[in-house]
């Protein structure tokens, strides 16, 4: 059982869930949530915005376009389940973006937006994906770097 006291405290209700989990969260990078943000890079490395854009498009990775419109005109279909992300860098800091990707439910427990860097506390995950995050820590960093370019 990996201890992530800060995160657990922030989510509250997931305490009960995480008790019964296998040690599947092992291997996840630890992070600290402060002021609704995760200030530090998950990997200690800078993100690559060019790859971040690719990940945002990729249906098996970020697939952000499923729900958001983004300034990527070369892609035909953009969703409108979530807000348009054009110019979004004006509203958020890097750390705020990072928390929104890692686990937006910390900010809004009702949101439909998936937690992209969370591996436990889910219900009936397909075997293939059980104990895994949707994207890697570096993927998160790359997408954050891309979001920061959306000025």
């Amino acid at each position, binding site marked *: 059982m990996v201890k992530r006291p800060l995160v657990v405290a922030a989510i509250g209700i997931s305490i009960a869930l995480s008790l019964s989990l296998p040690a599947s969260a092992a291997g996840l990078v630890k992070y600290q949530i402060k002021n609704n943000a995760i200030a530090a890079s998950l990997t200690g490395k800078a993100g690559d915005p060019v790859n971040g854009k690719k990940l945002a498009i990729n*249906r098996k990775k970020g*697939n952000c*376009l*499923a*729900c958001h419109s983004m300034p990527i005109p070369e892609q*035909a*279909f*953009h*969703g*409108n*389940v979530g807000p348009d992300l054009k110019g979004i860098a004006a509203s958020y800091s890097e750390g705020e973006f990072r928390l929104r990707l890692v686990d937006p*439910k910390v900010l809004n427990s009702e949101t*439909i937006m*998936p*937690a992209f860097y969370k591996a436990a506390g*889910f*219900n*009936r*995950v*397909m*075997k*293939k*994906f059980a104990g*895994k995050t*949707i994207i890697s820590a570096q993927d998160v960093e790359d997408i954050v770097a891309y979001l920061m370019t959306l000025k």
Partner: protein
Amino acid sequence: MRNLYIAALGVAAMTVTSIGTVFAAEDYGKYQVEDRRSGYTYAAKETQAIQDDNFENPAMLWVDDGSVLWEQAEGEVGKACASCHEDAADSMKMTGAEYPKHNPKLGKMQNLEQRINQCRTENMKAKPFKYESAEMLGMTTFVRHQSNGQAMSVKVDGEVAPFFKKGEAFYNQRRGQLDMSCKNCHGDNSGNMARANMLSEGQSNGFPTYRLKWQKPGSIHRRFRGCNKNIRAKPFGYGSEEYVNLELYVAWRGRGLPVETPAVRN
């Protein structure tokens, strides 16, 4: 044509009433009851046109197959469905609108597929059809087609209530790695785009539905499994109690909508 005209009026109304209420811009006719709309109204015009024309609707082939099976004696008793139920147009007129139903002998809900197999094994002493087999899709498509135009009207009170509650809980429960519930997409986001897909209300009134993607009709349980897999959740089995209860709840969500089997969707 009429819809276009009304849509144009709606836009005009919106520009005139700069503040306050915006009038509903579209008239969905029989495909809307109160705030509930059939998936038909979310489908592309070309897809609607395929459904509307019995000669173009490819699922009518399955209806034809079902009509043959209806008359065909099978099993040790040497009877066909028609031996007991005679003209399906009369005897099955409400069936498609009223299933799943509570079966007192089983002490649980039973959907149309299961009822058909009960008739086969008990009354005909014939082998049950496999879920999603050509025979079962033919028979269920044929039977529900007899109920076309009837208002979806599953019973949900009395002995059905506990099963209804379970279906409702399933509907609202998040699952899978994407951690979404049916309600997240079909309750809260109908009318919104998920990339190239317009999210509908996830109504069941057109099932078995011919999906262009499948190139054949599929049961509502096949659709549930697809939606579960899309959010990376472990699907339940065909005919599982969980899905039959969910089927009941989904049918209730569409109460009043006309049965429109076989529907055509993307």
